[in-house]
């Protein structure tokens, strides 16, 4: 286990280093001056010059990179060009939004997706199962922003149950937070639920053809005992990978949904920081998103081993 952890840690550090290097130089060769992007079309040359000096953009690129990476190792991600605040402060504000959104939508995905997936697999071929399968196809192919608008129109505008936009911090009001997160989480979850159902159904049906199922049947186990006692354990493995990816994806930035619901999470921050060429913010955000993806993969790996002891070897 210790060797495994060490290996993981090493590959993790290498990946982060390469990502940081790529991101830094990739964004810096993009056309567009941060000062001009922040100040916009109405800024004159003098205003741009002053801002460039203030932001330290006159320094050579490698100096900017080393300054930044040195800071990162000391826990200092630099200062945002646009907001003129430490990146860590901004991230501290935004992380809870994205984290809550991801957890909430993950909860909805698991609570709805897994039982429905099993149900559809068990009832495979029957009319209601086919109908549900068609629904999942629609769920996968419908853009989340459109689902978002429909949800706002129905639950916020027509029924007045939820706010149309904005995020209420948990510390301020528990139910306020739940209300502000429910619709965006659902908008994200619907597509993911459909994906989970598809994977789980295929995986369960796949497992059902295996020899051990036949043996279990011969032994006289009931269909529920077979599914929950044996099949599910194996069938959940690929779903776990998908769930890991979904969580990383949502944490990393549900860019469109955050815009639709005017939520100030990492996704919307990433879009505005790219628009304004806010390099310290972009670099830090992508670094963090990469970190999340790597950590999620690591957790999934660990869970694999818990679920399937054979992988431990």
């Amino acid at each position: 286990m210790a060797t495994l952890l060490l290996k993981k840690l090493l590959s993790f550090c290498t990946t982060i280093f390469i990502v940081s290097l790529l991101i830094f130089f990739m964004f810096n060769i993009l056309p567009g001056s941060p000062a001009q992007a922040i100040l916009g079309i109405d800024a004159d040359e003098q205003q741009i010059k002053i801002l460039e000096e203030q932001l330290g953009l006159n320094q050579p690129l490698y100096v900017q990179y080393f300054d930044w990476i040195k800071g990162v190792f000391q826990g200092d991600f630099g200062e945002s060009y646009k907001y003129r605040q430490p990146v860590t402060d901004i991230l501290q504000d935004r992380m809870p939004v994205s984290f809550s959104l991801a957890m909430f939508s993950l909860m909805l995905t698991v609570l709805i997706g897994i039982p429905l997936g099993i149900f559809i697999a068990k009832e495979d071929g029957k009319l209601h199962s086919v109908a549900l399968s068609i629904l999942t196809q629609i769920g996968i192919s419908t853009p989340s922003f459109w689902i978002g608008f429909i949800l706002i129109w129905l639950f916020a505008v027509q029924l007045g149950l939820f706010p149309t936009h904005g995020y209420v911090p948990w510390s301020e009001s528990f139910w306020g937070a739940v209300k502000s997160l429910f619709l965006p989480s659902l908008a994200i979850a619907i597509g993911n639920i459909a994906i989970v159902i598809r994977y789980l159904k295929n995986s369960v049906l796949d497992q059902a053809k295996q020899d051990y199922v036949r043996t279990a049947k011969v032994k006289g186990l009931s269909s529920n005992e077979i599914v929950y006692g044996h099949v599910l354990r194996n069938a959940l493995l690929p779903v776990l990978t998908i769930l890991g990816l979904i969580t990383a994806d949502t944490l990393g930035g549900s860019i469109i949904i955050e815009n639709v619901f005017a939520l100030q999470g990492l996704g919307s921050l990433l879009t505005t920081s790219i628009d304004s060429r806010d390099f310290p913010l972009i670099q830090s955000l992508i670094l963090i998103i990469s970190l999340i993806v790597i950590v999620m993969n690591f957790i999934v790996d660990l869970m694999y081993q818990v679920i399937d002891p054979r992988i431990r070897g």
Partner: protein
Amino acid sequence: MKKILQMSFLALLFVIVLSACNSAPEESTNSSNTSGNTNESANSKSAEESAEDAVVRIAMSSELDSLDPHQSSGTDTGSMMNNVFDGLLDTNEAGELVPNIAKEYEVSEDNLTYTFKLVENAIFHNGEPVTAKDVVYSYSKLAGLDTGEPLSDKWAMVEKVEALGDYEVAITLDKIDSGFLARTISPIIPEGYTDQATHPIGAGPFKFVEYKIGQELVLERFDEYYMEDKVPEVKEARFVILPDEETAILAMQSGEIDIIPAISEQGVMQLGDKITTISGPQNMSVILGLNHQVEPLNDVKVRQAINMAIDKQQIIDTVFQGNATRIDSNFSPAMPVYYEDSVEGYYDLDIAGAKELLAEAGYPEGFDLTLTAPSHRAMYTDTAQMIAEQLKQINVNVIIEPIEWSTWLDRVYTQFDHESTLIGFTGKIDPYDILIRFVDGYSRNFIHYNNPAYNQAIENATLEVDETKRADYYKEAQRILTEDAASVFLLDPDRVTAMRKGLSGLKLYPMQKFNLEDLTIDE
């Protein structure tokens, strides 16, 4: 299995029902404490809530670039923060300069020194009176008199700012500049105050309360505002940042937003009779910029042919649903004092004539033209497609190159790397700021236009202090632009502001300004 299913649906239902039950008390908490979640319905505004306590929520599509008025240049930022700051002068709806902190001014005989007499009852939001030393501090800072480097090119001509008394200030320029007066709408801030970027203090009708990055800006009525008749009716203004227009419209439908300052025609239709609107030209010029250093656009006949082949009315009717005013030079009729109307209809649609001109220029078979269009707004990409269709008729094959906004600013606006491009310039109160874009040597003359007669007209206008003569020079400049077919000057889109029923009084200005002191509450 069934149990798991039931449990999960029950959990879901539980969340929905509980949130619904909890809605009433939540709303009151949210409206006072939180950002974009002010759920207080417009329809449910209780009768006893007087205008005195009214909170108005306004949807803005972009974030603020800086709270410090001397560091910011964002148009939207300016229109919000203009409510917090006052300058020496202000502008009215016709674009004329009117008294503000300065009740009157005089200009010296050599037209170099401007002496302003200040009102004596104006105070900043921190309770300090607004005096001459604050004006000296503010404008010296803008002109960089202490640092040797102005904060903006627009202040480079100021040589000296001095207090002649507690309430009298003289500003001396190093050369005559008739556009200087318009600069004095710039904010006056308290002397020595350095926290503008985090907690701005001005002397305007609203004081700053807080800004949550990317979420909302909260302003509160300043009851001690020195113009007693202009103390706003609205107690609190919340500018909620909603980047997506559809979200803003839905929020207005649910009563969470009261005003959308710039809404599309489709949005107006969607909101139907729930709202009232005001609309009019916004002093913007949307143009098809033609790069004069690119062949064959360096030939005036080719540019004229392109002008004659473009049907502006069709663009207005389709892309802008009729809500725009045709322009024929880089100037909108929204500024009647300086607008030259003789250029109207100068290039009427004439496909045969355009083809003839192209043949004369040596391009009977037409040519390929790349149109670099910023992709962040549908109005540019849609207009680009329309233009491509129209120019097909004279065999000009337009290749549309959509380009991200920051890249446009860099490639087109800074490096002039384009053949043709689409862009809209927001209105300025001084015609010089509008027409300087085409002066040779100006750093943002992105079409490489160079006509000595034009340059001269602009310079003459700068040196002329007589208002009528000055206007004549600007009109001459507009005529030259048109005759030269410097570019294709397309239209000025209407600005449509949607307000919930019960609000009125908002006015349109020939610059982006959102004057909340005009707002009245009818209920």
